[in-house]
């Protein structure tokens, strides 16, 4: 681990720690309104000011970071498991199964990621409770984000299927199911870990895009997407630079992930 990666680790730990401790660090809940101080600039009481509904921006940033940083790995886990199941199994079985899995993967990959997301999001009800919207958004990311990883896993499992040790195990009479779980899956682990870590920043950015477009987490629940939506009404950066804090935090976190991922990407490739 080089110096930059160590720094990235520290940054991620600090941000995650602060977001988990939001209940103690934030001056109020994310939905509490200070009606006498709407759209207020930073002050002692409100470090990052308040939004147009009078909610403390610092509290919303902390809680929003918690939602995005905890649920993006959950979505990444779901997508990695799906990729392992579909891609790994199809690659191991080979033949028509592999071709079918790859045809479905190609179909998904032929659509731009954001377009696929908004289309699938539109198929679900939009007027749902904030908590359901959080679950729907991240479930959607997990359920649709498996394709690239599945392709990599299918190829890796396919090459494992033809490897000497698997052939030998098959010749020794090991049943197919045991062969898959005992000999193939453990060898897929490095690729699975890599795909898991690669998916996290992708899902964080996707949630932010969906949130800004009004198809992500709904009010009053904060997430990076809904916090960044505030930039829509901005007239000048100089007048209200504190509104850029969520964006700066997002860029710092995603950059930290990218720095940590340089090694993982080599494994995934």
């Amino acid at each position, binding site marked *: 681990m080089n110096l930059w990666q160590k720094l990235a680790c520290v940054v991620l730990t600090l941000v995650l720690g602060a977001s988990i401790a939001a209940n103690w660090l934030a001056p109020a809940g994310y939905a509490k309104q200070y009606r006498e101080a709407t759209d207020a600039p930073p002050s002692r009481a409100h470090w990052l000011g308040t939004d147009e509904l009078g909610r403390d921006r610092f509290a919303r940033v902390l809680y929003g970071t918690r939602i995005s940083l905890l649920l993006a790995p959950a979505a990444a886990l779901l997508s990695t498991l799906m990729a392992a199941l579909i891609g790994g199994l199809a690659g191991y079985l080979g033949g028509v199964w592999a071709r079918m899995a790859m045809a479905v993967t190609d179909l998904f990959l032929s659509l731009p990621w954001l377009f696929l997301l*908004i289309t699938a999001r539109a*198929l679900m009800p939009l007027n749902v409770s904030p908590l359901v919207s959080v679950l729907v958004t991240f479930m959607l990311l997990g359920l649709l984000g498996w394709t690239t990883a599945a392709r990599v896993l299918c190829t890796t499992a396919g090459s494992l299927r033809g490897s000497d040790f698997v052939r030998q195990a098959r010749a020794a009479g090991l049943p197919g199911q045991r062969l898959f779980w005992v000999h193939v899956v453990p060898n897929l682990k490095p690729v699975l870990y890599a795909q898991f870590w690669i998916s996290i920043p992708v899902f964080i*950015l996707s949630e932010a*895009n969906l949130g800004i477009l009004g198809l992500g987490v709904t009010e009053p629940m904060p997430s990076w997407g809904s916090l*960044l939506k505030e*930039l829509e009404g*901005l007239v000048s950066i100089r007048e209200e630079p504190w509104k850029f804090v969520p*964006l700066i935090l997002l*860029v710092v976190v995603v950059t930290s992930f990218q720095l940590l991922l340089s090694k993982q990407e080599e494994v995934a490739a």
Partner: protein
Amino acid sequence: MQSLPSKITGHALALLATVLLGGFLSATLMRLAPGFDTDERELDPHLNAQSVQALRNARSQDHNIFRFYFSYMKRAANGDLGTSLALGQPARTLLRDRAPLTLRLLAIGLALAWALTLTLALSAAWLRLSIYDTLTTIVSGTLLCIPAAVLALLSVLWNVPGSLAIALIVFPRTYRYTRNLLVKAYLRPHIITARAKGLGEARILFWHVVPVVTPQLLAVAGVSVSMAVGAAIPVEALCGLAGIGQLAWQAALARDLPLLVNITVLVTLVTLLANSGADVIGYVVRSQEG
């Protein structure tokens, strides 16, 4: 090696199959989506039972997914793509009116993104200055960490054209691929030999490296069309540009599923055509190189 006509035929068949399958999947999802088969007109107190029944009968053929899709395809073959539920206009008219703007945005955006990518990647490869390489990597890496929708919002704030926003969304991705391809190409034995023989950097780059990476770059160019189409959604939606990206966003917000199916088929067709085109051109380039 496959002949060119058989390669083109293969691509055309795969394209047709994918578009048909994509359309069918979209139609199936649309049919299964919550809220499908409801019509607010049925709540109109002025309508009597027979009128309500007539409305239900009009939708009854949509109940069978195969029948629904077959009738949709049949109508589509005759140029009838149905009517948008939210906008109340024929989908064909909406797509036809908005396509030129999106195509112009995509063309200019992609041209700018590739101009920037090739300028920076080739100059970094030519100069071989680690500070320059680090600087370009930081710029592209930072842009990669900013959500596309934020770049679209910033373009509104700074009065920057939408096409430039698309370019800035696509550029970091194409730059990363191009840089990696160039780095790998420079590690090839014939390049090391060429340098050992004292060939100039410019000659090595343009005579030995660029021809090696051209087929892969063409493949990336095909993929970049898909990236640009994806980028057009936030850019058009947030910059108020009335293109197909904005239409897709409006259809998603209004749950205008019939319109979304048409846009899905269109987007699938465009991205697959771009990828197949890039693959065929790459094949021609490779075969000419021998």
